[in-house]
């Protein structure tokens, strides 16, 4: 079992420790006997989307995000082809915004997006740095974490999270959050969201195994301290709520 993870722009789109998402996914897959290769691409590179089974990008500053978008735009057909063949894609933080039709920055300038999703984003002069508890129908447990956004994303067809009990959704406080379509997942949650949420990792592993047509073991690996850390954060955030 061999698998390739493509990590886009890790040198600058990892503002809140997002690189850890790739590390934790890799370690879970390796615990299942999968030989994982992690490829990285910088702005100057042509990302090898053709051979990628899992494609990830994390958050950056607003200015870095625009540079990342400019770097990725010439490769959008390749990215679309990868999505069409079932590659699992996860864009977190403001990388999510790049998938849509456009991003309008706080000065009013409109930046065309990748056009792989039908939403549009408006940046705001205020930030919403907030703890998050998010609920999805894709798996049972809530997702916990943090977001550090300064935007509203409008007209999301299918959100990843139906509602938040803490945090700022795509368009409003506690509203629906993120985006999902097939194997493309996006959320404005920043930081090591996969480290924080072992069930999210397991969900992605199931998707990856399905695409690769590998046989899924009855139980997925549980790595030390991850679930304990998750429980503490759930308890803390729920208590706060």
């Amino acid at each position, binding site marked *: 079992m061999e698998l390739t993870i493509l990590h886009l722009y890790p*040198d*600058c789109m*990892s*503002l*809140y*420790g*997002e*690189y*850890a998402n790739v*590390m934790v996914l890799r*370690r879970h897959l390796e615990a299942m006997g999968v030989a994982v290769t992690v490829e990285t691409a*910088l*702005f*100057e590179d042509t990302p090898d989307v053709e051979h990628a089974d899992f494609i990830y990008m994390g958050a950056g*500053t*607003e*200015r*870095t995000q625009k*540079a990342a978008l400019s770097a990725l735009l010439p490769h959008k057909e390749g990215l679309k082809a990868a999505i069409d063949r079932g590659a699992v894609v996860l864009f977190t933080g403001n990388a999510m915004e790049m998938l849509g039709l456009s991003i309008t920055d706080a000065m009013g300038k409109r930046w065309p997006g990748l056009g792989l999703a039908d939403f549009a984003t408006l940046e705001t002069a205020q*930030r919403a*740095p907030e*703890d998050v508890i998010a609920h999805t129908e894709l798996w049972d447990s809530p997702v*916990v974490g*943090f977001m*550090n956004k*300064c935007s509203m994303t409008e007209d999301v067809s299918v959100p990843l999270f139906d509602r938040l009990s803490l945090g700022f959704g795509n368009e409003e406080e506690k509203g629906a959050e993120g985006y999902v379509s097939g194997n493309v997942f996006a959320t404005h949650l*920043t*930081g*090591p969201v996969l*480290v*924080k949420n072992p069930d999210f990792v397991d969900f992605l592993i199931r998707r990856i195994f399905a695409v690769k047509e590998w046989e899924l073991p009855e139980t997925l690996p549980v*790595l*030390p*301290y*991850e679930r*304990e*850390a998750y429980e*503490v*954060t759930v308890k*803390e*955030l729920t208590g*706060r709520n």
Partner: protein
Amino acid sequence: MRLFLAVVVCKVLRFIGGLIGKGSSLPGQFALKVCPNVLGRVKLPEHIIAVTGSNGKTSTVEMIAAILNASGKKVVYNKEGSNQIEGVTTLILSNCSLGGKMRGDVLLLESDERYARHTFKWFHPTHFVITNLYRDQLTRNGHPEWVYDAIKDAVFPETTLVLNADDPLVSCFAKDHDPAKVKWFGLDECSISTKEHHGVYHDGARCPVCKGRMEYACYHYAHIGHYSCPSCGHRRHDTDFAVTALDLKEGKLTINGETEISLAFKSIYNVYNILAAWSVCALAGADNAAMAGVINNYMLKNGRMITFRLGNHRGTLLTSKHENSVAYDTNLAYIADTGKPCTVLVIVDAISRKYFTGETSWLWDIDFDRLGCEHVQKVMLYGKYCNDLAVRFKYSHVPADKIEVGESIATAAEYLKENGDEDVYVVTCFSDRDKLLSLVERD
């Protein structure tokens, strides 16, 4: 009349506050209600020095005050660290005559990087020292460029900027500023400089102006060093004030090739704080001999290193700041440099004492690999977020068999009290340190 009233209100409340030991922002808050533009109406001294940046504000301000006081100037400054507009108002009005004239030769302000624009709406500093910008309390601050934009709104044409030339983002403040009103300080390539970047993340990887790939001739620490961008030409500016030689092990530095200073605290951050203080004091007219006299072996009052005993252990608490990986890295580097067998206790219990958050992503920005050295015999991870720490350490160079994890800080202290006699280093934040210090014998 309103000005007079505001001064009186502030002074009375300050007096009462002093009696009951209450904070320093309330009097200013009331004074601002009485006279919203009071800061624009008082007469301020000739020199108004402001200091901002992610790290080093308090230490730099303390040293500037000490130097200028020794140079015969009367300095009024916010030593209580109330660095938002209400605290600054309290400070200024408390030191005003009833006619609204501030006493003193220098008003010196530690300025909160996000709120400087509110404070300086009413008066503009003559000198604005900007020390550095990096990932610090991102749950409040967003990110360094967000903070940059906030400070930018507080930069006015008549202000002389005193900038850290070695920080590529800080250097951007000079872009639209009269070059005659920008002074630069920095560290020459020296014994501590490296060709390779060290740390988990590299916020200097991309040019802050054009986002092209930045090149570094050398790094001093994190993204601080000698950089140049081949794409747009943004590069480290030549310095007006420089540390021209540095021996951190010996604790000696040389400023501008002529003045040698001994360091009471041998850290690179102390070097930059000294240099920043030196630069602005020189600009304010202090002479070299007076400055050297004060700075030589200067012991900071806001010491963040506390020694104690616990059972047979000699302990040192190194105050870091949660949500600030650079502060952590400093202390981890210190431990790695000791070379003596030791146990390290890392505590993350309450992430902040000022606000609630469960955010732990900053743990992934800390270079815990620094503890992966032989003389660190045991690493104890404690507090409410011990599991998050434990997960983080699984991706570090510290072997799993050296790691111990538990929630209760009291249990950690009890264990140490009963076992062993090696040195103990405690790495934690202001928000959590008293939870341990209450269980040990302070020196």
